[in-house]
């Protein structure tokens, strides 16, 4: 069964450092997403990506964040200068985007900023 894979599963970084979270979406999917879940809080939408550009983003997704699909298979989330409050579980997802198809999620990357 096809699945979304994320690497690494856990990333520890120092405050102020740049971090890149990586995702390989399902190969025939067209829409890609990042969500995050701060410990004890809801899973929150960050950004959706379609046709090589951002199509929707939330208020959380400020200038510190960027996404990229560099090679047609990977989908990355970059945080330029991490803050303590960026510590969270980050989920990548992908979907076909036709009608109401479900989003398929990866297992998540736990980011810890120290």
């Amino acid at each position, binding site marked *: 069964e096809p699945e979304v894979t994320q690497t690494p599963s856990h990333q520890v970084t120092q405050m102020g450092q740049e971090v890149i979270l990586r995702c390989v979406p399902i190969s025939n999917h067209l829409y890609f997403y990042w969500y995050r879940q701060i410990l004890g809080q*809801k899973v929150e*939408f960050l950004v*959706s990506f379609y046709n090589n550009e951002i199509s929707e983003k939330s208020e959380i997704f400020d200038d510190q964040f960027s996404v990229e699909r560099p090679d047609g298979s990977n989908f990355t989330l970059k945080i330029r200068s991490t803050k303590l409050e960026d510590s969270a579980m980050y989920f990548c997802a992908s979907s076909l985007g036709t009608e109401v198809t479900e989003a*398929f999620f990866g297992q998540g990357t736990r980011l810890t900023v120290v």
Partner: protein
Amino acid sequence: AQSVTQLDSHVSVSEGTPVLLRCNYSSSYSPSLFWYVQHPNKGLQLLLKYTSAATLVKGINGFEAEFKKSETSFHLTKPSAHMSDAAEYFCVVSDWVSGNTPLVFGKGTRLSVIA
């Protein structure tokens, strides 16, 4: 704007007894509703979805949910809990317009199953 309220943060049941995980939603349009499950160290897996067809939706692993518009509810049930059902469950709503439309998650309900 959509929102989801999962009424219980933690539910504990005995193996073989029924499971009820409660979810209420708020939506401006005709919503699509989902239940996702997350087992430890696993991704979010779709259990079932409601998309304006039958109001009683059957999902994987014996779970089902009933869409009740008058009560704005989408509770998840299972007749008989199994140890492998222990996980975190998320109720999700979407006013689906296109593939860009974000999913809105509830806070999650942790289900414990006691032997």
